[in-house]
């Protein structure tokens, strides 16, 4: 069934497939990973956010003791973390397991997926070790149907990422969350993204990051131009509204990035012969914009038109 990749059938049989999970995990620990691999494959082929049956969620707490670190990491995206609000130790065990497993694309996808899911849960987010955020920088390609991406575009997740004050992590986060497989459902998050582009990607030396972000958005918009049928082959849950929202959002984000690019260009033209250092551009709406420029140890606020 998993080989056939008939996602309708896989979705209808998700309870039976999930029932196999404890046994598959145990077999994997005993050196027989075939059943677990089949489960992972079926979970992905089902194109379902939440494949697992809710009766298996309680089993998640036992995973660190019953599964090998590799199996724990691969299965963890199918754990419903939002129900495990009292499992801070589970988050730490998961982080330890992820650190113990050699990096592969599959492992990277799972870790990033889970990371975004955990950040979304307020009670669990404090338990995430800081070094786990470096997994975002590796930028594994998340699958078309990915629960981590959905919850990852919530406003407070974005705030948590922004609070790290690490431009590499922030850029990697945006590159992961921006995708042709879904729009940013949280309007506040979208607004915060636009504002952050002005704030964090407008300083000196940010040109490379902006270019990467624009390239990513170009790629997404190119994919969206292929049409809904093409996208539905990989993510059958997409509809016309999703396509429209995605196009409008990603175009807008691209516009913001291009605007920053234009502002930067005009600023450089305005201060061609000074050793001024452009720190940030603050954006106060569609028309009001100002930049903070350091010059000989003092900061000067320059309004932009």
């Amino acid at each position: 069934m998993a080989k056939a990749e008939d996602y309708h059938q896989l979705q209808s049989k998700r309870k039976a497939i999930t029932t196999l999970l404890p046994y598959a995990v145990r077999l994997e620990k005993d050196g027989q990973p075939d059943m677990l691999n089949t489960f992972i494959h079926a979970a992905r082929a089902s194109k379902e956010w939440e494949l697992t049956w809710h009766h298996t969620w309680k089993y998640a707490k036992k995973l660190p003791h019953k599964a090998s670190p590799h199996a724990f990491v691969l299965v963890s995206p199918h754990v419903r973390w939002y129900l495990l609000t009292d499992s801070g130790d589970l988050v730490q065990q998961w982080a330890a397991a992820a650190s113990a497993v050699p990096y592969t694309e599959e492992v990277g996808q799972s870790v990033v997926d889970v990371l975004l899911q955990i950040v979304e849960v307020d009670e669990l987010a404090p338990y995430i070790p800081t070094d786990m955020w470096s997994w975002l920088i590796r930028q594994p390609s998340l699958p078309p149907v990915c629960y981590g991406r959905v919850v990852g575009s919530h406003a407070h997740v974005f705030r948590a990422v922004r609070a790290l004050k690490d431009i590499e992590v922030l850029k990697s986060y945006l590159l992961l969350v921006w995708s042709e497989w879904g729009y940013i459902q949280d309007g506040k998050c979208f607004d915060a993204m636009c504002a952050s582009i002005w704030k964090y990607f407008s300083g000196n030396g940010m040109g490379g990051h902006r270019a990467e972000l624009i390239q990513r958005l170009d790629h997404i918009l190119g994919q969206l131009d292929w049409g809904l049928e093409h996208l539905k082959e990989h993510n059958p849950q997409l509809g016309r509204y999703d396509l429209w929202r995605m196009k409008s959002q990603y175009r807008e984000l691209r516009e913001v990035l291009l605007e920053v690019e234009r502002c930067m260009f005009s600023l450089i033209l305005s201060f061609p012969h000074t050793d001024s250092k452009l720190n940030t551009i603050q954006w106060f709406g569609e028309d009001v914009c100002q930049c903070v420029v350091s010059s000989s140890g003092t900061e000067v606020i320059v309004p932009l038109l």
Partner: protein
Amino acid sequence: MLGKQWLNRYASTDMRGTAIQRSQNRQRKLDGVITWYFDHVMESLPLMLQIALLLLGLALSRYLWEVNIIVACVVLGVTSLGVTFYVFIVIAGTAFESCPYQTPIARTLRHTFHWIYLYTPHPVHVVISNLIQISWCCQLPGGWWSSLEQPWYSTTNIVTSLTCIALLPVALLVDLSRLVPEIVWSLLQDEPTVTSPQTHVLDKQTIVLDLRCISWILQTSLDKAVHLSTLKHLQQQMLTPINFDPAIVAYCFDVFIGCISVNGYEVVVMQGLEQLTSVSALCLFHTISHLWVMDPTSSALRDVRQYYNKIFPANVAFYGHQFSHTMNAIHQVFIQSVGHRGFRWGHYKPPGDEHTLVAHTLLKLAQFGYQRMGQAKVPRLILRFALHSLSLDPLPPAPVIADCLSIIAVDLGCDISDTGAMTLDERYVHTP
């Protein structure tokens, strides 16, 4: 008359002396009975009478043959009839142990055949049973019998009977020409070509007999200790798919009800009957499941359901008892009360044999449920059982894992045919 005297002497009870003296006297008489082969002598008395009667009939016929042939023919006919009847009951008594028309000759013959059977090499058994199966002479009467129609004197029956009689010599010739080389060839071979499921058939026969005994004991006995040992025996027998008396379900339920009292929604187990309650609940679960699979419209099932509803309120609480999971499963699967929809297997961790029995029962229910629900899914309660069992640490016994995986396979739409289920049962039967 002598036998009557002897039996009176044996059955007489001493009225004097202490209990020890009387029992010593009784034991002495019993030892004498065994030492002097009393039973054989008693058995031989009617036999001698029968032989005497036969000799009288033969002698009378011989004498009357010279006096009046017609009268002699009548006596000879009556004697022949008696002999034929006697031969028939001897054959029947030899072939079937349960035949009530037993005679000393039949018993001796049966012992002799049994002895021959035991000391005959196994390949010879196999060859004989195979030859019986393929022999035309053996098949011909069976075919004739099955082709008979109503009324028995119909033209078709007469023609068929005559054809069979005509074909019998031909079949004999064919068998001789075909089977003799086959016998020689089979005996020359080291391994028999076809194996016979003799052991399994015998096992099934024994189990059927056991189930009848269990049914009788549960029906007649009021002793709780007897109930407990009987139900434990029933628990062991239930892994083999045998049709049993549907009344066993009611008997199991009666035993269970006899161990508890219901106060409002709460079930209280009587002191000292905890084990019997658990065993009877388990047997009830298995028997009711088996009956449900075999005959969902059974009147016994309907009666038990009515009786159950009369005794237990819809949201009865079995929690806290050893049998709570079993009874809740019964409640949900067979009674289907809304109050128990939230039932969880939770901390269910039974002993290995109980777990095996429950898993096997649920597998059968899963197969049945899958078919009944339009090949869509097995009941979720059963799938949750599989999930719970496969999550246990340490893992349950291998048969439980096999059954749980089979339950999942059924839900996934894999074809686990009856043959497959039989294989599982055979494995359980031979598992110590």
